[in-house]
């Protein structure tokens, strides 16, 4: 166990180092004065300019500069926004809970629906139901989600009026950000609004979470199906059947559990799909998360925010993948044995 943890940690650390190095290279490639790019319009020669230049080490060698960059990043200094003058890390932490809340819900939807549909299709392999699930998941997988999101807004919000159009909660509720998770914060406002704010926040979550879940859902359904079909044809399933194990137990215990092992990696990989999707989803639904934050920063040419934000997102994706790999090792007995 300790060996697995150490191995994962070393992979994690080296990926981080690699990412930081690539980012450093990229920032070196941006044309223009690095001081102005990182600290805004300072006048060359001024005290502030010289101090900024010194902290960036612009006159030093490539490796010294990388060392300074690494030191800054590892101490949590991702620069300061040119627009708001706030630390990029602070801004990231303000917006991140919104994205996390949306992504967790989207993952839940994608997992529950995706695995169910996959098992369903695998068990009914070759029937029209299987074909229906497979073709609709192909449509879902290839759908441009900004278009899909707008379509859903048009139908569910504007035509039927069932769901809110955008945002995290109706603005009539005055919710103080405590945790940054709207569902939790809205419960803090219980004395003022009882459960009204909570339900309102929940209703705001449904459409964007579903839109964000669409692509991973389709991917998970397809993967579950093929993995399940493979497992159901395996010899040990046949043995189990011959021994008279009930169908329920075969599907849920012997079948799904084994089918899910390769799925863990797939689901882990979907986390980066989720974060990419979040940029589009958040823009469509005016959801104030890191996706929207990044898009706004790009429009405003806020280079420190773009650099710091992308780096932080990359860290997060690496972290998720490392934990998924770890989980994979834990649940798959074959990985535990040394070669």
């Amino acid at each position, binding site marked *: 166990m300790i060996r697995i943890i150490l191995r994962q940690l070393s992979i994690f650390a080296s990926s981080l180092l690699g990412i930081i190095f690539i980012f450093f290279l990229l920032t070196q490639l941006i044309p223009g004065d690095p001081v102005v790019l990182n600290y805004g319009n300072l006048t060359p020669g001024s005290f502030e300019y010289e101090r900024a230049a010194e902290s960036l080490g612009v006159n030093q060698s490539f490796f010294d500069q990388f060392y300074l960059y690494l030191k800054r990043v590892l101490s949590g200094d991702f620069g300061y926004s040119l627009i708001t003058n706030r630390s990029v890390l602070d801004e990231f932490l303000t917006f991140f809970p919104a994205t996390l809340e949306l992504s967790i819900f989207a993952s839940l939807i994608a997992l529950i629906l995706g695995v169910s549909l996959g098992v369903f299709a695998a*068990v009914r392999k070759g029937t029209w139901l299987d074909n229906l699930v497979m073709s609709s998941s192909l449509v879902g997988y290839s759908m441009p989600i900004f278009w899909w999101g707008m379509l859903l807004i048009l139908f569910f919000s*504007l035509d039927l009026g069932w769901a*809110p*159009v955008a945002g995290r909660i109706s603005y*009539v509720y005055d919710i103080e950000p405590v945790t940054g998770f709207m569902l939790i914060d809205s419960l803090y406002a219980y004395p003022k609004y009882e*459960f*009204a704010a909570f339900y309102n926040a929940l209703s705001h979550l449904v459409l964007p979470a579903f839109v964000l879940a669409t692509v991973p859902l389709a991917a998970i359904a397809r993967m579950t199906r093929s993995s399940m079909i493979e497992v159901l044809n395996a010899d040990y399933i046949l043995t189990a059947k011959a021994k008279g194990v009930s169908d329920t137990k075969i599907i849920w215990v012997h079948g799904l559990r084994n089918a899910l092992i390769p799925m863990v990696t797939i689901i882990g990989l979907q986390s980066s799909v989720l974060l990419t999707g979040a940029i589009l989803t958040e823009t469509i639904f*005016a959801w104030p998360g890191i996706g929207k934050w990044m898009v706004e920063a790009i429009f405003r040419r806020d280079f420190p925010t773009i650099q710091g934000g992308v780096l932080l997102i990359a860290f997060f994706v690496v972290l998720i993948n490392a934990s998924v790999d770890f989980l994979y090792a834990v649940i798959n007995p074959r990985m535990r044995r040394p070669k």
Partner: protein
Amino acid sequence: MSLKTIMQTYCNSIYRIIITSALVVLTGSCSYDDVEKKAKSSTLVYCSEGSPDSFDPHTVTFGTAFDASARQIYNRLVEFAPGTVELTPSLAERWTINSTGTQYTFFLRKDVQFQSNELFTPTRNLNADDVLFSFARQSDPEHSYHRVGKRDFSYFNFQGLHSLIKDVVKINSHTVQFKLTRPYSPFLSVLAMEFTSIMSAEYAEFLASVDKKTLINQKPIGTGPFRLVRYQADAYIRYARHNNYWKGAESIENLVFAITPDPSLRFARVTAGECDVMSNPLPIHLQALREQSHLKILSQRGLNIAYWSFNTRKPPLDNPLVRQALNHAVNRQAILDAVYYGSAELAVNPIPPDMWSYDKSIEKYEYNPQLARNLLYRAGYPQGFSIDIWAFPEQRSYNPDATKTAELIQQDLRQIGVNAKIITYEVGAFLQKVKAGEHQTAIQGWIADNGDPDNFFASLLSCDATIPGQNSAFWCNEEFDAIIKDAQKISDQQHRAKLYQRAQEIFKEQAPWLTIAHTKQNLIVNERVHNLLLSPSGGIFFSGVMLENTEQVEQSND
């Protein structure tokens, strides 16, 4: 158990979960309808177009930021009456101007209280120190709040107040005197502009004492109708009414700016009732609106102009006959239809009709290609000539699509034998090159900074304005220029209006521009909102606005 039954029970349980949770949510949300209704009845939600970069009205430059700060949180010494550009007393209850027009003495109200926030509670009412602070901060580079926020005081500099204001003197605790270096009659209008908002000197002192000076940009304290409660960038700005507002507390308790940069999403939100007011609708939204009975359009002619200027330093445009010919050659109605989709009106004079001194008696140049050809013949260009048209590359409210306007002009010019070439650059380069006079003709526009006609005539058409090149026609007419200079020295409005009317006659005769359009500004507003007025200078003020069911609900709850 067969496979089929397993699948059925599995599906059933999933369905059951989905249906029950849907029911819980539905019934839950239904039973809290009253809570929501009550919250809604006291909250106005405005779908705004962007995030403010700061809440400091002295340093910001964009309308969005003025909407979020100066127009809700702060007051000025004098202000424009709602929906007009008429000056009314505000923090100064009255003022006197000396006979030479160089000394303005303001008498401040004594009952003006500042707002408070979680850090600060004011101990005194507004007095002369606050006025002194608000101006000294902008004019004095040594002032301890001058460098806070590392930003320029763009408007203060642009309006030339550095050289205009000699001194601001405190006569007594509630009397302030502005000493000017020269008589300048638009001064009162300048003081009604948002960048002269009055801040609390006491709050500034307090922030300095706790070493948090930059909070003056982020946690503003003003005297205005609403105080800032919370701001989350790119999400929302929340205000609450200022209960001690000197004009009396507002009827709206909460005001929220829902920041929604995408116009289609803004429209969807206002349609679904998530916002009460939507900023900057597109023409297509106004057309779609006729089906939505609970929404109305609020339209206001803006103090702006789009124009096609002729560089009078370059032949053949130095000849007034040629410029008149070009004026007759263009079918402006076609431009209004195709570029502005009817949300603008044809401009006759260089100032918009809502501005005082507008001369109604001046007739527009009719679209008449035959007459244009005759004029060209008389000017000595029977064969026509070639010119370039520089088109502003970005969308502006007064110029939704300058390139398209240029193309329409190009087609019209072909009919009178003038061959035009359209030129465009990226904004920075465009403005620089036009200021340097590299163009022959250029399509540009202007929005009023304040309600004074001087802001159009002197900024765009005076001889002085040819030096930085703001006067892109580089037109310097002696008589016109003398009139503009005279009008700056006189404080009697009727007398000034006469001078400006003469200026408009000269403008028409000399035709340094083709005046194209005055754009209307629009808001889409839910019918439950009353008393909302658009300001002609483009801003939105929520003071005095009422929500229809406010009183009803309050009564039923009592």
